[in-house]
């Protein structure tokens, strides 16, 4: 086959029939993408994020304070029993 014929054949590549994706699945994909975009854009989500962050911060603070109190109690009891340690 001559190179011109090959080039003509390659030009026919553009004329190959278009393969159609499954329409139902394509629409499902589009819907998933749009849902992802909506989730990212919606203000309630930001509010929820803010609340979640605040709740986490509060929980951490409470647990930290209680832990510190417990540790202080142990140190206090230890000093009461053994006295102040000498260097």
């Amino acid at each position: 086959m001559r190179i011109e014929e090959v080039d003509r054949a390659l030009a026919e590549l553009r004329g190959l029939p278009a393969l159609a994706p499954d329409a139902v699945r394509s629409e499902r994909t589009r819907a998933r993408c749009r849902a992802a975009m909506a989730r990212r854009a919606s203000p309630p989500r930001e509010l929820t994020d803010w609340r979640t962050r605040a709740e986490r911060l509060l929980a951490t603070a409470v647990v930290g304070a209680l832990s510190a109190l417990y540790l202080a109690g142990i140190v206090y009891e230890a000093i009461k029993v053994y006295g102040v340690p000498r260097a």
Partner: protein
Amino acid sequence: MTCMDRESELALVARLRAGDPAAFDLVFDEFNPRLFNFLARLSRRRDVAEDLLEETWLRFVAQMPRFRSDTSIGAWLFTVARNLHVSYRRSRLIEDSHAAGLLGLWPCGSIAASPFESALASETGRRLENALAALPVVYREALLLIGVEGLRPAEAAAVCGISPEAMRQRLSRARALIARALEDPKHPALTRLEEVTT
């Protein structure tokens, strides 16, 4: 590479970055069939092409807010689709010599003749499809991107992550391979493919 001019594309990118659903729909309608064609002919399997197509769009949406203002939408999409196919091939260790049948690309049970079936009626079309499918994947993707999708060689090189010179060499080699395959109907690659498809 796309129906839209560069100015319209940049405006579209700005809308995508802002999360405009209508802009997304425009891009989806323009590129969904083209990406499917590319992936289906690259992977030679309809189910794989559908999976990779969906993953491409999900990545597109995830990355949209981080697009640069000069992002080329088509190049971005074809790059991701091509990379997903590379990952798929690596994970499944697919060998080119074990080509899946082209007939598997089309849904079964269609009453009317599909465009593909019409093309099969054409001897040249059938041989061209077979020759294309039988090419090693690096040459096939070069032909698909430039010959079918109409990307410029430099754009196709960027999609494949190679230099424009390397892409020119691949294209030249692909032309030679397809010429040999078209010249000799009993070319080993085509014979193997016929065994699968008939």
